[in-house]
């Protein structure tokens, strides 16, 4: 289990690195798609079919939008430049990364390893939840009953993004 996911994750990391360095923006976007679809397989392995369905659809739509934008503008990646600022960015980046990585290792030492999770708050979302909400799909029960308020917020976010896109993409800003 852990090994399978690690291998898929390895491919995802390679895909992500390729996406960041690709010369062609279209292939960068497609490489990001690889990362997203790899995530779908991980979700399926982790017994999360709801997430897999949502992720596969959302990933496809994201790809459609991104490809549309790239095809509409330019596929050419910028010329790489190695001036002082880029170098400085990289050096600070690596120092921060090394620090973050080290502290992450320390931080997760005491936490539950994979598969050893115990239910805290979620205990009531699983045991006896079907009687409480009537929903056989426990995730739906959490989303639309126990934590329906979160779902409202989430829908509002998508609504805001749609309204924002409408606002940002109008032709003239000022009269």
């Amino acid at each position, binding site marked *: 289990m852990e090994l399978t996911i690690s291998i898929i994750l390895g491919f995802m990391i390679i895909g992500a690195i390729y996406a960041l360095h690709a010369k062609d923006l279209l292939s960068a976007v497609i490489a990001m798609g690889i990362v997203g679809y790899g995530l779908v397989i991980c979700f399926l392995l982790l017994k999360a079919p709801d997430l897999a369905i949502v992720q596969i659809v959302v990933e496809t739509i994201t790809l459609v939008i991104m490809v549309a934008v790239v095809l509409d503008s330019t596929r050419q990646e910028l010329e790489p430049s190695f001036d002082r600022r880029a170098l400085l960015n990289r050096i600070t980046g690596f120092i921060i990364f090394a620090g973050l990585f080290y502290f992450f290792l320390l931080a997760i*030492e005491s936490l539950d390893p994979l598969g050893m999770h115990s239910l805290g*708050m979620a205990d009531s979302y699983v045991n006896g939840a079907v009687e409480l909400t009537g929903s056989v799909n426990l995730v739906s029960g959490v989303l639309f009953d126990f934590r329906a308020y*979160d779902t409202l917020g989430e829908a509002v976010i998508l609504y805001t993004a749609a309204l*924002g896109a409408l606002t940002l993409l109008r032709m003239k*800003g000022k009269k």
Partner: protein
Amino acid sequence: MDALIPLFVAIPLISAFLIVILGKLIKSFHRILAPLSLLALLILAIYVFTGLGNSSISYALGGWTGNGGKPLGIYMVLDGFSILMLCIINLIGLIALLYSLAYISKYTAESNYFALFCLIVAGMNGVVLSGDLFNLFVFLEVSVISSYALVAFGVGKTELEASFKYQVLGGLASMLILLAIALIYWQSKTLNIVDIRVFFDAGYNRSFYVFVQVLLIAGFGMKAAIIPFHAWLPDAHSSAPSPISAMLSGVLIKAVGIYVLIRLFFNLFVFSYEIAMILTSLGAISMVVGSLLAIIQWDLKRLLAYSSISQVGYVVMAFGMGILLLVRGNNEAAAILAIAGGLYHMINHAVFKGLLFLNAGSIEHRLDTRDLKKMGGLSRVMPVTYTTSFMASMSISGIPPFNGFFSKLIIIIAAINGRFYLLATLAVLVSIITLGYFLKFQRFAFFNKAAGQAVKKIKEVPFPMSFSMIFLAVLCLALSLLALPSVRETILSPAIDVLIQAELHSKTIIGM
């Protein structure tokens, strides 16, 4: 009273949706509905404030109250601190909206503007009321995503660039926050803020604890624009439409940045000395560097934006000092004074920075420029703008009898009582620098006659704009009353009690 709490989120949401549906059909529908809903929210906030007193209410959404002291669903928590924030948010929101009525007429797609405005208010109200870590994140995203769209509302070159930068850094901050929430859930198996506090009280792994706290400081520090994380603020706050700048600088960075930081570090985490040191020093650095960067600006709104960084530094420093003194445990009076000063300065800053951005908006509305060098001689032709901006400038620089003087004084006294002599000196120095750059603003905008050729044709701004400026200016004077101990007791004490007595607070909430 309990049943009123969800209305703080429901009213602005419903009016936003109605504006989008009916705004196209009925002319100037949005101009009526949006101010009405904000007015209703303000009245609601004040009504709840008068009835709340020292108690706190927890409201279980969906009726999932939990069993055996373990929360089950999402809780909305209303206590002395959050109601104070609600009052500020809805007050400044109402004023900025009134101002927008006249200001926004030069833009297209007005109804979208008002709908997004309602959504930003709904998001902030949701953040302030939330008692659940993940729910807080969701509503934080509601308010910041609508602010991304509002910053770029003019769809000009600078606006779009500023909004992109804001989005990237905001997205980065959101990712750090989400990672921290995931780690906290991993460790404590719960999302309820009070429940997590109970878990951490029982004991915690030290390296985990510090890592999560640093992630949260970075994440919310980015939202609050504390100095190493401030890169987006000067662009975003200066290129947004002016009422939105007033909202962003006045309340958004406080509601989604400072409020959450304070809530987490007082009520979710157990106090720790290192984190208090980090907060205090970050606050002091922002205070000093922000003011030094502000003094070299010639763009009026950029000057105000950098000054926001500096003033937010005061607030963070005051709260950091409060935690430091509480950890040391030998001088609780000074700690209470520092926290009171921080709260007081936060309220004051919302009022006078909101007012200053509205002033800048008035000048921009009439002159179409933000460059101080191109202004001059406006004191004759725009008397209302001149008077109110003078009051706000004196207030932010800490000149008596305006409110800024008293809040800065309280912070400085607390620093001296707590033996932070260096910080006290810095606070005084920064106050003098602040006076310096606001005198620069006053001189170049209102007196210098150099560019004053075309000035004679300029008229004062229309009534809704001048009314909102006058209202805030009067509030600048009125808030000085908070310096009186008896007034402070009734208004600030409930909030301070909630912050200091976290265990007691947890008990009243978890008595569910």
